[in-house]
Each structure stands twice: as C-alpha cells, then as structure tokens.
C-alpha cells in the first residue's frame, strides 16, 4: 500500500482517512444495528429508552446480551455486571492504544475513550503498526470512531422504529438470543476459547438455581479461568 508509507499532513486528511477506512465495514454494521434495534423493541423498551441505550452504552454485543435478561426481569446489578464482563475486551484495546495517545491532553483522551470500538480499534492498530509515529493519528482514530458511531446509532434507531410495526407473533425478541449465538461463534477460534465457552455455559447451567441470576456471573468467571488455564496447558504441551 502506497498510502500507508506516508503520514498525514493535516488533521482533516487524517480524519477523512479514518472515515474512509471504516467505509468497507459499514455493510456489516447496518444489518446488525437494525436487528439490535428490532430486538430492543421486541424486548419491551420504549423507542426513547432504546435510543438512549444505543447512544450512551454504544456497545452492540452488551446491548443485545442485555435484552433477554431485561425481558426475564433479572436484577439490574447482574445485567450491569454482565455488560462489564462482555466489554472487558475494550480494556485490552484501551491498553494497546494508550501508548499512542500518551501525550494528548486529557480532554482528547476522554473523547477518544467513547470511540473505542472493535472495528475502529482494529483499523487503527493496523495503520500505526506500519508507522508508530504517524502524525495526527488521534484524528484518524476519531474519524474511524465517528463513522462507526453514526452508522450504528442510525441503523439501531431505524430498527427500533421498524420493530414497532412487526406483529408479536413473529417472536422477534428471539433474534437477540440468536444474535448472542452468532456473536459467540467468531469468538470461539481455538481450543482455549472453546474450553472457555463450554465451561462458562456448563457452570451457568449448573448454577442457574442461584438467586439473582448469579449463575450467569459464576459461569462467566469460570469460563475466563478455564480459557486462561487451557491456554497455559496448550502452550506447555507444545514441543
């Protein structure tokens, strides 16, 4: 790539490059946003609550995971804890990106924090891997994050409005459960991930009589431990 070899000459150029880098990925974001919006409506949230959730939580996986829990009347603390665990992956992104933004003023870092997304992060890290001292890299990050946010929020709101027109008999609230399954598939890439998911599911099932749906939290914690343990065992068994 010729463009990757040279830096940006202005904030505007960097910002637009960030926007442009996200464009090919929009086709994947729009349908998922629509489904999330439709499922949010089906779970019983009002359009205002659904829109507020999309804008201020701004994390599709956690949003879609919360829907069956909300519909089942699970205590709020457990739902918030679940969102926290699902979004722990952002801590890794944040840790990886932090050295590139070390010298920015606090208000910039506060702003960029909101725009840490799966797509935006992956594109940014690929871009700075070629050129760690890329000038105006925070503008690139912001451009990528802004487009992800605009597309996500717009498609989820459209989905919420469309969801209001769908008859209840279609059982579209089940789309949230299917969404969780479909999101789970790409996370299970190797044997350690499979061990994590299988352990989490089994422990959550066995612990499901626990009050306040705490079995869910037990399952998630057991899964993380099983994944880390398997990773070590697999590394040790290699010659």
């Amino acid at each position: 790539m010729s463009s990757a070899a040279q830096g940006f000459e202005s904030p505007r150029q960097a910002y637009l490059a960030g926007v442009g880098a996200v464009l090919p990925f929009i086709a994947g974001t729009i349908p998922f946003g629509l489904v999330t919006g439709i499922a949010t409506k089906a779970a019983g949230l009002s359009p205002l609550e659904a829109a507020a959730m999309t804008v201020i939580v701004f994390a599709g996986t956690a949003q879609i995971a919360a829907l069956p829990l909300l519909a089942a009347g699970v205590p709020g603390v457990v739902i918030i804890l679940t969102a926290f665990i699902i979004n722990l992956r952002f801590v890794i992104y944040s840790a990886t990106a932090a050295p590139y933004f070390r010298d920015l003023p606090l208000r910039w870092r506060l702003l960029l924090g909101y725009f840490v997304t799966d797509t935006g992060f992956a594109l940014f890290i690929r871009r700075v891997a070629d050129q760690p001292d890329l000038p105006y890299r925070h503008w690139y990050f912001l451009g990528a994050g802004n487009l992800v946010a605009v597309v996500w929020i717009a498609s989820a709101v459209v989905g919420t409005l469309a969801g209001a027109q769908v008859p209840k008999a279609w059982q579209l609230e089940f789309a949230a459960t299917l969404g969780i399954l479909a999101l789970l598939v790409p996370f299970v890439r190797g044997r350690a991930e499979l061990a994590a998911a299988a352990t989490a599911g089994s422990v959550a099932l066995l612990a499901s009589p626990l009050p306040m749906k705490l079995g869910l939290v037990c399952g998630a914690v057991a899964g993380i431990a099983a994944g880390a343990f398997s990773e070590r065992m697999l590394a040790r068994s290699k010659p």
Partner: protein
Amino acid sequence: MTSQIDSYGWGLWGIIAGMAAVTYLNRASLLLLAGRFMLPPAWQAALKYAPASALAAIVVPDLLAPSGALDLSFGNVRLFAGLAGVAVTVMLRSTLAGIVGGMLALHAMLLLT
C-alpha cells in the same frame, strides 16, 4: 413469553446508565492513565476469554433450560432454532445470516409442531 421489563419502572434508566458507565470505564480507563499503567500480560491473556464466556453463560441456560429445568426434548423449539442459527453462522460466516436462519427455523418448527 411476556416481557417483564415493566417491572423495573424508572429503574430501567438506572440499568442503562450503569451499563453505559461500566462500558465507558472499560474503554477509557487505560487511555486516561496514558500508558502510566500497563496491563500485566497474564491479565491481558485472561481478558481475551471474557466475551465468549459471558455470552455462553447467558445463552446456554436460556436454550437448554428455558423454564429452569433441563429440556432437551423436541418441544424445546428455541433450542433447535438456536442450533440451526449456529450452523448457518458457521457455514455462511455471517452473523446476520445466522439470525435470519434461526428465525426461519423457529417458525418452520412452530408450523410443524
């Protein structure tokens, strides 16, 4: 199944705000520390497994024991619709195809049973 979402009342806004707060904290915490604190490698390795673990912990009891007790019978249509959704996701490598496939499987089974 009727949604129990109305039981939260105004508390629903508290849940949304809480989800937003913990999500922002996860995203921004280390950016705000600006490289003054690095995550220990063992933690980073373990955190990789958090999303798959939490998602599996939600969905497995939901599908295998929808009313509390284990139900692996064909009457548990959502379990088989879910398995169909996973199969379509794996085959077509598409989240959306998996959701659509699972919904179609659910309604096909509801028509047949």
